[in-house]
């Protein structure tokens, strides 16, 4: 069953990912992105990463996408107008993308070490306890330093978006 679930949700993720780009209305793109996030969560779960799967659902599919949609509605963004699509992009861009992804897929198939099949429930390193333990011991420094990164993002948003008070 596991490979079937993997194929199903991997297909949904890729199809919705393409749809994000193809849709003309921003809300449709945002909703496709929700589907990408949700199917990624299932893929994480299939590998036994329970905590990441839940975080993916709550943080990405929940919180961040709601913010996305709020912003789209606040800006009142309408349907995208397309005029004069670039032929250069079509002629060179599409084959380049196919070539890049195709060769990456090929190299990954041939070059990556084969570690056997993943079965749901086999691996128990992805629960909240294990992830929390790793974050506060082995990965303490990146965990703490990420807070600086977020602080800078906040300061930057304020610097670029504030109103002059005087």
């Amino acid at each position, binding site marked *: 069953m596991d490979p079937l679930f993997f194929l199903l949700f991997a297909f949904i993720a890729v199809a919705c990912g393409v749809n994000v780009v193809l849709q003309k209305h921003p809300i449709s793109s945002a909703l496709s992105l929700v589907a990408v996030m949700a199917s990624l969560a299932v893929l994480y779960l299939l590998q036994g990463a329970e905590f990441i799967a839940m975080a993916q659902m709550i943080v990405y599919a929940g919180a961040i996408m709601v913010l996305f949609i709020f912003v789209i509605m606040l800006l009142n963004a309408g349907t995208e107008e397309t005029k004069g699509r670039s032929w250069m992009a079509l002629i060179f861009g599409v084959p380049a993308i196919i070539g890049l992804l195709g*060769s*990456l897929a090929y*190299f*990954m198939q*041939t*070059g*990556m*070490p084969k570690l056997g099949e993943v079965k749901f429930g086999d691996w128990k390193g992805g629960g909240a306890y294990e992830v929390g*333990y790793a974050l*506060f*011991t*082995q*990965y*303490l*420094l*990146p965990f703490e*330093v*990420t807070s*600086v*990164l977020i*602080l*800078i*993002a906040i*300061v*930057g948003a*304020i*610097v*670029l978006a504030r109103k002059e008070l005087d």
Partner: protein
Amino acid sequence: MPANFTPSNSDLLRFLPETILIAAGTLMMVLDPFLSKSKPKFFGHLSILAFIAALLAAVAANGDPGFAYSNLLIVDGFATYFRILVITIGIFAVFSSYHYLDREKAETSEYHALILFAVSGQCLMAASNDLIMIFIGLEISSIASYVLAGYLRHDKRNNEAALKYFLLGSFATGFLLYGVALVYGITGSTKLNEIHTALAAPGVSLVMVSVAAALMIIGLGFKVSGAPFQMWAPDVYQGAPAPVSAFLATAPKAAAFAIFLRIFVTAFQPVASSWEPILWVMALLSMTIGNFAALTQTNVKRMLGYSSIAHAGYILVALTSRSEIGTTAAMFYLAAYALMNIGAFAVVIHMAGKGETNVQISDLAGLGKKQPFTAALLTIFVLSLIGVPLTGGFFGKFYIFRAALESNLVWLAILGLLNSAVAAYYYLRLLVVMYMHDPSEATEALEPLTPGLRTALVLPAIGTFILGVLPGFVLNFARDAAGIGK
């Protein structure tokens, strides 16, 4: 599992420079509401104090070298060299922006806090032994840089610079992350020394490693503005506020070269022969595109932008040579480049005037008559950028091309030297305009040098001169630190 939640004393000491910078930046955010109106200069003074404290901490940490935080950080001579370099650049960036921020009536607290945060990220990059830490440090430095590039947000040129830098920078980071993910997939580790061990073992797919290395070269090539990923550099350096351009052209580039060297000399060293041709082409393209595009520029900031691409090319020549001498040469050149570029940009800051109206080469006309002291300092920086003997730039180029010759990269060395000759033309044009032409309106109305700018001009000039006459001290430090692959 034995729980060890508290870092040891040596962990704390080895992370002290970053801690000081981050704490000072956060302190500024707290003090901002009380002091930003009454004492705008206070924040600059505070950040200089923080930089000096961090500099001392970096030197103290070097007395106790080793890994920290479960091998995520490494403090060695290499890390200390780049920490000292980026902190010094930070100090000059602060000195050169006092008057500028005052002239443009900009907020000072956030500006200095962002510079402090950016430098803390760059120090972190210099001392990382792990791809995750490298990524976080790089993002701290990059996001602060994007915001700084658009700091005067009512200025359209600033907006353009920030947006371009942000979009292209995020895209490049994506490539770097993809490379990191592949490396983790191949080796099962993100720690550089463990990656080295895993790649040196037999049976590793070299094709896959090369793909990962190529993706990381795209990401890092963008950050060091090496061709063909150099498009953003002239636009950003031209559009950003002049002191920010001075900072962006030096500190993030030095830190990016630090991780470039560390990743490729330690982790990817077992597969070095596969990335040499890529770097060869990148080095040649960067030198050629940078120098030839700079020939036709009329805007000084844009010209310095193209020249910084060319200088990235020279440093890539040192990387291509894949030897300890090459690493030493790259480290020495980055120090010399930082000093001369900060100095040259400081003159641009001085000349620019309110709203940066006077940034054309023709605006420099007659500077030699009106302000001989400023003109003399700019002459030192320009001569160093050309690579004339008795300046830091000369020894920098000398060591780089010697490293290339010793690694049998004869053609690359010859093409590099020809490029230096082309570069001399557009640099000398600055001197001709400055000394041979009659004073322009801009130089007629020029104010005298402010104390902050004078410091940001005189100290780099002294540094450039010392590197050119007595390169031994810095060179020995770099040579002792260059053995990171061992």
